[in-house]
């Protein structure tokens, strides 16, 4: 292997490792939760192989647990995936030298690779190989962790081990560290109010999540704008 590539491989691996451990933790949770909505090890693993998105997969199984249908799950995931447009747009230049391989690299775009790759591109310029290594490590971690979680989840008695509680708690643990700054906190509080209002009007309705996802961020935008004028 070319010396420069070897060096990149090393840097990418070292930088990806701590995040890979975090991703594996999410993967185990996803796998356990997927078995609670009747996925088996094969289908839970297959979703990780084909989708490779922690947020999309966790939200999908979370919604299925609440009795949502396929259409509302897909609509919500489309909404959730909007930020991939931002990531793709921001990473395009740094990945451009990959040429025709870019459509393969695109599969690796998500929160964590975006964070690592954008700081790398800022430092050294375009570096598709770095991105490929990072995304590859995360992909392997995600798949193995999902399979592990699905195998554990399949063996446990859901009620006895409180696995039904694992859904909301997983989302709470995902949510809380990100609650920083007025606009985000405002979005979260608005989401509480909107969800309760929609559920109060029609308990258990399918549109609650997607409508909340569309409307609550407007409150965040409003707060952000007000902060800018202070």
């Amino acid at each position, binding site marked *: 292997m070319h010396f420069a590539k070897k060096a990149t491989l090393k840097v990418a691996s070292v930088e990806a490792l701590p995040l890979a451990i975090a991703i594996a933790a999410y993967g185990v949770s996803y796998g356990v939760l997927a078995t609670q909505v009747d996925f088996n090890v094969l289908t839970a693993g297959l*979703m990780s192989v084909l989708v490779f998105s922690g*947020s999309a997969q966790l939200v999908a199984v979370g919604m299925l647990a609440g009795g949502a249908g396929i259409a509302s799950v897909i609509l919500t*995931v489309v909404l959730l995936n909007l*930020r991939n447009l931002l990531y*793709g*747009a921001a990473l395009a230049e740094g990945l451009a030298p990959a040429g025709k391989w870019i459509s393969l*690299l695109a599969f690796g775009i998500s929160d964590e690779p975006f964070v690592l790759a954008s700081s790398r591109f800022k430092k050294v310029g375009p570096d598709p190989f770095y991105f490929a290594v990072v995304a590859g490590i995360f992909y392997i971690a995600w798949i193995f962790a999902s399979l592990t979680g699905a195998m554990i989840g399949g063996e446990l008695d859901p009620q006895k081990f409180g696995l039904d509680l694992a859904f909301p708690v997983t989302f709470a643990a995902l949510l809380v560290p990100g609650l920083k700054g007025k*606009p985000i906190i405002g979005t979260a509080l608005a989401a509480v109010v909107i969800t309760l209002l929609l559920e109060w009007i029609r308990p258990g309705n399918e549109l609650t*999540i997607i409508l909340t996802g569309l409307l609550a961020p407007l409150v965040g935008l409003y707060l952000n704008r007000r902060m800018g004028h202070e």
Partner: protein
Amino acid sequence: MSSQWLLIIMLAAVTYFSRILGITVMAGRKLHPVIRLYFNYVPTAIIVALIIKQIFVPSNGHLVLSLPVLAACLAGGLSILLVKKFLPSVVIGVVIGILVRYLL
């Protein structure tokens, strides 16, 4: 079974589509800052909606507060602030939820 496969394929398709669209069509374009912020706030809103829907469960056309779920979420949320580790925080939240469920 077949609906699971359909779901997996559709999730894979819409997710990949958002990625490839970003890197090709959106490449080099500067998105309006307001749109960027909006996209960044969406996941928070969706996650909150998912949590609230599980704390308040519909029962006979009414919403009922589930104390075990509420306690589990609060414990899980507090734990991640204190412990800063994901899986241990989930386990702590679930254990507190089970305790509340059996004590009430």
